[in-house]
């Protein structure tokens, strides 16, 4: 890594999209050997700021400076040439190619006629991996690595390209606790060797752990810079939201009839029989690490994956592998990946919101009235507080949190008795998360049985009555939330037993 003497600075940058001000005269500078966390709710302007710093968007006003010199960044490749690398959440790796090929992509050591120098490739790749202390074979396809390892490959590639500034966008969103720890360790090592690091994350615990400075954005404005002792969870939340959040009081488990009963469920991902029940009004969390089989369990219940054993909804036997029937008997699944599994991004909010219930509106021969489903869509938008409150804009134009509200809302239009959610608030900002939690609490008070999988420990503890902890496809323990601790859950999730 080059001795980092410089500094990267966004000076009074503003950016408008259409009539919406995404960033309003924001000034941020990052020094070598520093980790700066940029936090804020979705739509606060974090992504816009990062995209300006790495050349994806030009800014309307203001300038980006490197070492005091104003620079124009024509695009990510250009920014990369200036030593600025963005590691986006969706890693930009070529999955079918090897680790070495990925590390040197775009700057392969070449001889005459564009001949690739294999030996130079391998030694350069090895050096790159050493910088992030990652020990994987150079010849295996990147697709065979775990997500944490892939992240480190992406970072190694950036560093090897002489990047002095790393922009990390939600790097830990999909990592297990162990992987997260490794990644944060490596980031701190890189900082000590002089890298300037910008960290965008919703996980405030990580910010407390590693950030030297915290830049808080709200509605496109730079509202606060926190340093040292000021970097504190409550303070960060207050600055992000602009008000204090009331911690929700946890009500005790209400008595109710069993709505979802699972007996002896077995599948490819679940080697031992699984039994549990969810009562009306109950919220149960599925906790565990990546690969614990939580998503697969939800999908098996809903009918997207094969299973054996009995699943009953309101005493009615639910046949496997029949999602259409599941929807009819009142079971709904909010999937993990809202962009790829939950929404048709180019279609309007209305189209998305009315989709699951559309069959109810159809007349003879599947005929739809021109305004079919409009009321449903309006109701979804109102009930969940989707912003902006319009049904005629493309779902893809909403912020992540508001997209998630639509994904959840479209099922509520069907009045499901059992609601399954996979990572209900992944990548959703604090404010929208609280609104979604609030809505889920209301639903369970109305008698809906809720089963959700979450990797966020805070969410598991705050939202559930009971916690089912899974490890490698087996249930390793069931805890009552009011008595459970993070340590206990983690112990069960890693295959140990609760102390």
């Amino acid at each position, binding site marked *: 890594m080059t001795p980092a003497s410089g500094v990267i600075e966004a000076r009074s940058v503003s950016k408008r999209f259409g009539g919406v001000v995404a960033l309003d005269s924001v000034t941020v500078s990052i020094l070598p050997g520093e980790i700066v966390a940029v936090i804020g709710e979705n739509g606060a302007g974090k992504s816009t700021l990062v995209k300006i710093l790495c050349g994806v968007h030009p800014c309307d006003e203001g300038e980006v400076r490197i070492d005091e010199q104003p620079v124009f960044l024509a695009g990510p490749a250009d920014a990369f040439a200036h030593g600025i690398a963005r590691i986006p959440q969706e890693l930009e790796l070529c999955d079918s190619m090897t680790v070495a090929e990925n590390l040197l*992509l775009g700057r392969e050591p070449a001889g005459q006629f564009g*001949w690739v120098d294999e030996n130079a490739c391998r030694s350069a790749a090895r050096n790159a991996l050493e910088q992030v202390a990652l020990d994987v074979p150079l010849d295996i396809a990147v697709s065979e690595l775990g997500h944490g390892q892939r992240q480190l490959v992406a970072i190694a590639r950036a560093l090897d390209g002489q990047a002095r500034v790393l922009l990390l966008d939600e790097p830990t969103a999909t990592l297990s606790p162990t992987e997260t720890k490794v990644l944060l360790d490596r980031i701190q090592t890189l900082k000590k060797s002089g890298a300037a690091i910008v960290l965008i994350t919703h996980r405030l615990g990580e910010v407390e752990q590693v950030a030297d400075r915290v830049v808080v954005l709200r509605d496109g404005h730079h509202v606060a810079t926190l340093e040292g002792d000021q970097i504190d969870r409550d303070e960060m939340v207050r600055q992000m939201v602009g008000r204090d959040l009331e911690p929700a009081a946890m009500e005790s488990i209400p008595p109710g009839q069993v709505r979802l009963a699972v007996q002896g469920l077995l599948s490819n991902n679940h080697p031992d029989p699984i039994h549990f029940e969810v009562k009306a009004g109950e919220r149960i969390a599925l906790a565990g690490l990546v690969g614990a089989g939580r998503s697969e369990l939800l999908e098996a219940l809903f009918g997207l994956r094969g299973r054996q054993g009995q699943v009953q909804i309101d005493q009615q036997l639910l046949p496997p592998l029949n999602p259409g029937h599941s929807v009819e008997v009142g079971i709904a699944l909010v999937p993990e990946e809202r962009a790829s599994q939950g929404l048709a991004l180019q279609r309007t909010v209305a189209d998305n919101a009315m989709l699951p219930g559309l069959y109810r509106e159809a007349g003879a021969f599947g005929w739809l009235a021109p305004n079919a489903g409009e009321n449903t869509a309006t109701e979804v938008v109102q009930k969940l507080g989707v912003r902006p409150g319009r049904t005629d804009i493309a779902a893809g134009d909403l912020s992540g949190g508001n997209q998630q509200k639509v994904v959840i809302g479209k099922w509520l239009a069907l009045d499901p008795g059992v609601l399954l959610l996979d990572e209900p608030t992944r990548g959703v900002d604090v404010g929208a998360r609280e609104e979604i939690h609030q809505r889920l609490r209301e639903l369970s008070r109305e008698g809906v049985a809720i089963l959700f999988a979450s990797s966020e420990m805070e969410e598991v503890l705050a939202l559930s009555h009971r916690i089912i902890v899974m490890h490698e496809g087996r249930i390793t323990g069931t805890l009552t939330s009011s008595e459970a601790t993070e340590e206990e859950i983690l112990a069960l999730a890693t295959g140990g037993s609760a102390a």
Partner: protein
Amino acid sequence: MKKVLGILTVLVVVSVVTASISPSFLSSYNIENLLRRSALFGIIGIGASLVIITGGIDLSIGSLICLIGCLTPWFITQVGLSAWLVVPGLLLLAAALGFTHGLLVTRLKLQPFLVTLCGLFIYRGITRGILADNTVGFGTAESGLRTLGNGRIPITDGFALPAPLLILIVVAVLAALLLRRTVWGRHLLAIGSNETAARHCGIAVDRVKIGAYALCGLLSGIGGLLFVLDTGSAQPSNFGNFYELYAIAAAVLGGCSLRGGEGTIVGVLIGATLVQVLRNSIVLIDDIPDNIEFAVIGAIILLAVIADEAVRRTVSRRKSS
């Protein structure tokens, strides 16, 4: 290498079964013919695979073969131009047409399927128009040039290597080196695997893609030339019909994913050979009526793809458990 093992097994099994039913399968005459056909289709298969690796497709191969294959004898025997002028000129034209496909796909961001589908219609239509649907042939002319297509290099008494096989070997070695050993090849694979990543790494994505389409055009042109040199004459309404599908089948059977980013030249060669062996088997085995050729080939390709997917699933399941 592991990836081509499955398709190699299928090739061996089909060959052994055919040989055991029909002794003439192993006759030197048949083997020579088979090698000639496989070589010709291997050349256009390699062209198709380069485009498929980018995640694109080229449906115009057959019509381009028709264009070059018909215009070559036409220019030489009817217009009276020198072969030294006609052959390089037409190959340049084929490369230029491929280049144009690339330009339309990258600069105008049109879908490869659409661009090359239009090519499929246009080139055949133009050829039929120029020749007024008349068959053109060399007659007795250009017998020297024709050895490129129908030449034989005697090895033993009865057996000779067909000339196109040598051309294929040169093309295949060059293509394999290009794909595996040069920066351009790396970039081609990277683009097919993840175009955004490639772009953000500073790779000139458009230029590399245009190159792939131009090479595919050139190889189709070479194919068209060799086909007509071999047969001696061409009929514009059916010359090269469906050849793009044989080329795509060779690439897909050989391990090229239509999603892009994957593929080997060795695989494509085996794929091309398998398709020709299948066609040959249908002719040789009396119990299979010749007119169901397409159905048999379609079914075999489908089975191969299903088997491939099944193997992939088993492997990934074993890996996860």
